[in-house]
């Protein structure tokens, strides 16, 4: 019904508190039976004995006991909720760390909505296992067993006979229900994740949806996901309804037994009225856990569907991890690609690429869309592992360099701009959280972002929306660039960073890089000749291979691909428009 290893592992560290809480809960259950005893005593003894004076004492004891139960119940409920919350809290942290540790590859094939489901509702369900489902089941079981004993003690073999008949039936029904409802709960879970994905993508794509007037289409998409979710829930209810009502009839069976059999036995003089009365109040205790047994089965199956998903997720292992003996000294930025091959799925993104960059050099990479330029970056930062060949930095295979050191030494200004919904200052300081304001401003100035930032009413403290919405493409690129610069890396990579910038701005930024980042290795990936022409070396990529390399002048003389782009971009000089 559940995975004991996972669920018992989660409780580690809370065992004592959990045991105390459960124990207290059990105590309250048993003390609750004591209350029944007091009532029996009142009815059987006080009522008939006319010992009026002892009544007050007994009633005070009754209320005192109730107060004690109250305090204990509150304590145990609070503790159990606290433990549940604590476990959820731990799971959230573990899950979050897991998310941050997983490879790019994982995110290429997993949807945000699906991960969100695991981090929200799945964790909530697992939490409820500790705060409600498990303790309730335990205390109900205790209530059942203890009441049963008292009943046996009072009612003898007849009760036993009835139970021998009822319990196995109940067990069979529960097993059947459990088996049948499991797939239904799994489906609910899947549908919930799909719902999350549909809504999540719709929110992210809100501009596209509007641009294409596809609001109705989107609503239709949601309608399907929505009704699948609804139907999955209804299906699960259909199944539990097949068993629940039958299992709930236990109370009536016992009730019937007490009134008819108990009544007859009393008439015959085998039982007292007081016994029947106590019996009557015990019956509810015995049967309540049994009548709700179908709910327990239901709940456990539901929780375990979520538990499985979280467990599976937490067991996910990143492929890219630190080598046992890693290099930890500062990196200076000599890069060597030694016959590097890489495939994303089954296409050759890079085919045996070899090149060398010396520290402090500025390298340009040009090439057509999808030729493998960006793959080079993903490999240098070790976001993916090469399929073949190796990459050396400062003569060391990057697999033997501390991952954190490596990524700290490389700074990429991504073409796919992602900003966080925080202030501009915090976004720029993302790679260097302790940075002083003057450093942030310095980086922004180098990226020519300072002017437009200072023009905003709240300047650097302006909060920008998720993904920097509300800023223009060029503004976002410049913030990204400032962010990459402030990290102060040994290797700076500009991945098409200037595509949305005008020529003046680009030129300014280039000058800044050439003068202020002299000692850094800089790789500039661009579609524009103007961005790379001053580089020490230019690599031309085509279909995952380097087809041309050299300085600007060498490549022009070469009259190959590079020359052709050059001609297209500066055609004016040839058409004679320019003076």
């Amino acid at each position, binding site marked *: 019904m559940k995975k004991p290893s996972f669920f018992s592992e989660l409780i580690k560290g809370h065992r004592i508190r959990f045991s105390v809480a459960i124990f207290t809960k059990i105590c309250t259950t048993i003390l609750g039976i004591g209350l029944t005893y007091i009532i029996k005593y009142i009815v059987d003894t006080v009522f008939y004995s006319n010992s009026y004076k002892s009544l007050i004492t007994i009633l005070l004891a009754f209320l005192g006991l109730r107060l004690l139960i109250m305090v204990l119940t509150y304590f145990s409920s*609070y503790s159990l909720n606290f433990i549940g919350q604590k476990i959820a809290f731990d799971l959230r942290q573990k899950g979050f760390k897991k998310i*941050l540790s997983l490879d790019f590859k994982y995110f290429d094939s997993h949807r945000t909505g699906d991960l969100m489901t695991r981090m929200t509702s799945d964790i909530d369900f697992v939490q409820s296992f500790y705060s409600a489902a498990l303790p309730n089941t335990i205390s109900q079981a205790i209530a059942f067993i203890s009441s049963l004993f008292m009943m046996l003690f009072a009612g003898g073999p007849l009760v036993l006979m009835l139970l021998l008949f009822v319990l196995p039936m109940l067990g069979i029904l529960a097993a059947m229900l459990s088996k049948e409802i499991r797939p239904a709960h799994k489906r609910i879970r899947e549908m919930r994740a799909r719902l999350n994905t549909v809504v999540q993508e719709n929110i992210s794509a809100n501009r596209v949806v509007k641009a294409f007037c596809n609001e109705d289409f989107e609503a239709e998409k949601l309608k399907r996901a929505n009704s699948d979710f609804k139907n999955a829930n209804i299906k699960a209810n259909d199944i539990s309804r097949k068993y629940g009502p039958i299992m709930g009839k236990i109370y009536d069976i016992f009730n019937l037994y007490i009134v008819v059999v108990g009544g007859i036995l009393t008439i015959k003089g085998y039982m007292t009225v007081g016994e029947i009365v106590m019996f009557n109040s015990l019956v509810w205790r015995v049967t309540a856990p049994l009548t709700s047994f179908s709910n327990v089965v239901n709940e456990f199956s539901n929780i375990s569907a979520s538990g499985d998903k979280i467990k599976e997720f937490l067991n996910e292992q990143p492929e890219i991890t630190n080598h046992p003996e890693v290099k930890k000294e500062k990196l200076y930025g000599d890069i060597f690609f030694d016959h590097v091959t890489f495939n994303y799925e089954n296409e050759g993104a890079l085919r045996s690429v070899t090149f060398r960059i010396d520290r402090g050099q500025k390298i340009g990479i040009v090439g057509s869309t999808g030729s493998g330029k960006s793959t080079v970056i993903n490999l240098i930062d070790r*976001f993916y592992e090469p399929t073949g060949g190796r990459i050396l930095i400062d003569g060391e295979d990057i697999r033997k360099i501390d991952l954190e050191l490596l990524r700290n030494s490389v700074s990429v200004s991504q073409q796919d701009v992602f900003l966080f919904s925080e202030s501009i200052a915090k976004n720029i300081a993302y790679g260097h959280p302790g940075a002083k304001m003057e450093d942030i401003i310095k980086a922004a100035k180098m990226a020519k972002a300072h002017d437009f930032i200072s023009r905003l*009413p709240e300047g650097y403290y302006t909060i920008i929306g998720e993904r920097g919405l509300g800023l223009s493409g060029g503004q976002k690129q410049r913030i990204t660039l400032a962010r990459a610069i402030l990290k102060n890396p040994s290797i700076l990579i500009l991945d098409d960073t200037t595509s949305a910038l005008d020529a003046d701005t680009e030129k300014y930024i280039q000058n800044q890089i050439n003068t202020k980042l002299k000692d850094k290795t800089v790789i500039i990936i661009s579609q524009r000749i103007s961005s790379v022409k001053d580089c020490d070396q230019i690599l031309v990529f085509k279909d995952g291979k380097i087809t041309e390399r050299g300085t600007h002048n060498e490549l022009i003389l070469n009259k190959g691909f590079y020359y052709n782009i050059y001609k297209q971009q500066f055609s004016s000089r040839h058409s004679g428009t320019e003076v």
Partner: protein
Amino acid sequence: MAKVNTFREDEDLKIKFGKKHLRKVGHYLKPYKISFIVALFAQILSSAISASVPYLFQNAIDVQIPNKSIKGLLMLGVIIIAFAVYNFFASKYSSKHITLIGQSVISDIRLDLFKHLQKLPFTYYDSRPHGKILVRAVNYVNNIANLLSGGIISSLMDLLSLLFVVVFMLMIDVKLTIVTLIGAPIFVAILYFLKNIHRKAWQSYSDKNSNLTAYVHESINGVRITQAFVRERRNSRVLKVLAGESMQHFMKANSIELLIPQITSFMDNLMTSFVFYIAIAAVFKDPAAYQVGVVIAMTNYITRFWTPVANLSVHYNALITGLAYLERIFETMEEDTVIHDKPDAKPLDYKKGEIEFKNVTFAYDEEKGNVLENISFKVNAGEKIALVGETGGGKSTIVNLLSRYYNLKDGQILIDGQNIADVTVSSLRDRMGYMLQDCFIFSNTIMENIRYGKLDATDEDVIQAAKLVGADEFISKMPDGYFTTVSERGSTLSVGQRQMISLARAILRNPDIFVLDEATSNIDTETERQLIEGIDVVLKNRTSFIIAHRLSTIKDADKIFVIGKKSILEQGTHDELMAQKGHYYHLYTTQTNIQ
């Protein structure tokens, strides 16, 4: 930019739950009223039956047993069986309907919420973390399923069983009944006292939880940046704080909530003690005052009285929690869509595509000053217009205004002589084909991603469009060709390839007015050239706007506008502008000047 919310701040609640919202809840329940009533009646009868059980029991003890009537006991047995059979079917039936109602209602609410979200302007999405919107549409809505179906029915049921119990109690003994009822007003007073703290506690929990969700959501989307900037540990600490806050607020709300069942069970016992005391005291004076069965039935009924009260307080708790969610849901549904059709709006009567901006002034936010001031220009049908200028100068704003993604502060935009503010939004946007800066790829096949531009397009149309923009080549090389599944931000596609797919999407639409907003900035020059040639075929005789930084792409435009300083600085053809030796000349020469 409007005021932006982040994962650090709680959102202000803009509405207060009131009668209007209750009516709205009623509105959602209305279609299911028959199911609702039937389930309710099935349960009413059940609960009446359940309430009669102690009565039967009392009858057994006080009448049948003293009379030694076995026949009478058997009769009672038959009644119990009959009741059980009824209850069996009633619970089966009502459970079915309650689930149906609950699931249908949340499904309806979600659909309405979602449809409303489609109408909300860009600013809504730009000004808050997307995770906060997500959590409303999915988690919050799920959370109210029980409240709006089983919760309401059970509460009504509990109220009714209270009534039944009181009637039965009165039938047994009036005096003891009155004693029993004294506890009720005290309890209600306590609940009333707790109400406000309780509700506030749940509200602040839902705020904290929403902050947490927003942070998780953003972190998943930005995971690549986080890894690249080695922020994993620091971000984990942020999460710890947020998760800790959420936990704290939950426990606070919970600590209030847990009090309520304790109070009810104490009241139950207190009243039981009173009844015993009064009854026994009376019996002590006059042994005939009460029969034992009466006292037992009475104490039994006290428990039965307080059980629905306890249930009601549980539902009340759920109601309070649910209200915190419902408020957020309704608040989103009431969010102003800002851009709506005028009451007498007519569809755009598109003729040729003449566009005129008349003294257009625009500001994203009143307080933050104008982005465009008093802009006027005219575009003839079929012209190709290029917008150039500094980043952040307002180029994208101009094209966004054309589709009425924002309302103007002043002035008019006319298409074929009709003010776009006077025509229906959908008829206006239907004419437009946008290729946006931000190209979004749905997690679906490439085929479906392109088809998104025109939902009824055939596969051939899609491939045709892809060929036109030169995307066919790389798509065909992918493992499953057009049927390769791509993801939102996956690395399977480079940014340039994504741009080509969005472009194919826009082309497929075959619009009358075409807007390319830096559509080709990440595409290499050679591909771009082919692409432009392909598009030119499509654009022939259509009005189009092109924003580009690579000036080589726009040289042949019919008119070039240089945008800057909130207005149009220069306009004319390439040659005219070059001759002017102004801004454009400067831009162009810096870009083409290799030295």
